[in-house]
């Protein structure tokens, strides 16, 4: 029997998607762990870029939350630079992948990381806000969104659109002035993976974690997504992935121990 947290699954699934010899804009927390795992196992020559101004670090392990921007995290970077420059690399087209979390997502991949509620002035719940998320979603060529699979997180229209998906309130990215041919590319949740329909730009289920069914996944969403003709079975974390994650990258479980435990035979 295999036991892992859904966070571990998301991290592994995201790491498998990255390509070697590409650039990736890496955010706080989970995306950082994804990048570290990918670097260790799959993409040794990927170049990580951090918004505070670190390009291509060879971060020291283990991952520690507090080292964001500190010596361990930015160890042996190719370049330490400004935030304006880091974002400009992305705006000018030099960054292939971006990774983002989301409190809510809608049918077109719009993301909410700002607030829950109907009245912006009196939010029911306030989150940290965009951070660099809006820029990652706007500028990077392919954005990977990583989030818990919960019904309330999949909504017809986000309470607040922090970062742009493919279509916002009826308007396409290009009509809105966002860089051409960018946008959310994959959504990885705690039990499934989605891409976006080429034509309609709608969220489309393309993979389900081994042990779950398409129905279970779709029932757990606030709207019905498109479903690919062939929905693949997503492999749970491998022994090697889990070993690297648990022993080398995040031995204190700061990131990977969060979330629900999944048991598979």
């Amino acid at each position, binding site marked *: 029997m295999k036991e892992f947290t859904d966070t571990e699954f998301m991290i592994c699934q995201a790491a498998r998607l990255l390509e070697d010899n590409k650039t990736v804009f890496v955010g706080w927390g989970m995306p950082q762990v994804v990048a570290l795992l990918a670097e260790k196992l799959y993409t040794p020559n990927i170049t990580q870029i951090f918004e505070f101004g670190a390009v291509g670090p060879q971060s020291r392990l283990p991952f520690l939350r507090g080292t964001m921007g500190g010596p361990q995290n930015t160890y042996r970077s190719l370049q330490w630079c400004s935030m*304006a420059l880091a974002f400009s690399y992305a705006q000018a087209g030099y960054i292939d992948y971006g990774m983002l979390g989301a409190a809510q997502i809608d049918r077109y991949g719009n993301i909410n990381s700002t607030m829950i509620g109907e009245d912006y002035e009196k939010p029911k719940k306030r989150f940290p*806000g965009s951070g660099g998320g809006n820029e990652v979603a706007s500028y990077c060529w392919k954005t990977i969104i990583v989030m818990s699979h919960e019904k309330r997180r999949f909504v017809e229209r986000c309470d607040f659109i922090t970062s742009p998906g493919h279509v916002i309130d009826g308007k396409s990215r290009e009509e809105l002035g966002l860089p051409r041919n960018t946008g959310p590319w994959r959504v990885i949740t705690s039990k499934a993976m989605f891409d976006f329909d080429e034509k309609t730009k709608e969220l489309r289920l393309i993979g389900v974690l081994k042990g779950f069914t398409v129905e279970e996944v779709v029932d757990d969403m606030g709207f019905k997504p498109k479903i690919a003709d062939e929905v693949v079975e997503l492999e749970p974390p491998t022994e090697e992935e889990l070993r690297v994650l648990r022993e080398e990258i995040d031995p204190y479980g700061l990131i990977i121990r969060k979330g629900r435990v999944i048991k598979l035979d």
Partner: protein
Amino acid sequence: MQIEILSKGEAEFHFIDPDDFREFVRDKKTRDWKDKLMDEKEAIKKFVKDGDYLAYDFSSLTRGPQSLIREVIRQRKKKLWICAKFTLLESALLAGGGCVEKIDVGFLGFGEYIARKVESGEVKVYDWSNGSITYRLLAGAMGIPFIPARDLLGTDTFKKSGALAIRDPFTNKPVALLPALNPDVALIHVQEADIYGNARVYGPTVATLETAMASKRVIISAERIVETIEFRKEPNMTIIPYYLVDAVVHAPFGAYPGGTQGYYEMDAEHYMKVSSIKTEEEMQKYLEEYVYSVDSHEEFLEKRVGMKKLKELVRKAEILEGFR
């Protein structure tokens, strides 16, 4: 001939006409080589006023100007509008001290305490993003009224910001115009400065230069005060020239409880203590113990942190490569 304005964010935003900023620089900043060394108390008293728009650079984790922030709280400054481009503990502590009225966000961590302040409406948030705020500072630094960019477009963040979207006359596509940001005062912590304000940082530079150039008043705190010749020997490493700066504070462990590269690591324990504050009572207790009941940064270090802890944090900062 006209350019079409496509949409307009609805929020109030801090803005100074570049001509007014220029005249402030001409009349109130000095290009004089004068000794600007003073302590936190004097610097904050002289250069931070109630109602100011206050910016600071980097984070609570790394190279943040924490001794200056604590002094702002200690002096019970009021009605500040702060620039939370990238911030964690500071905003919560400043809100706890009753110093903050408005926050431009960025990334507004941590956590339950500050979230409740916002949810209750006590602190008003203006949503931007790290990129748009940084570009706004860049425009302010360059002395131009705005900068075009391709972020925010189409989102609710845009609607709740002070940005414009126009049809770009060169491409005929929509583009956002982000208004320049010129803070009233900037607090910046660096590894090395001289008494005139020349300064350099090691590690990611975030928006250190842009913030200093764009701000009417600049207070630098530095782990070390070094001779001017040190900058002249490696001019590529200078990030802030003296004429941007109003005050220089010698603040060893100035980023505590965060770390400063090449000097000391973050105090994870103290950091957890702050970040776990949830209630008003806990916050006021914390502020009383660590801010109000001590008179200076030195007293704070001595009586509330202690040499043993400081030594331990220095001990942990073994990575020096790139930081000297």
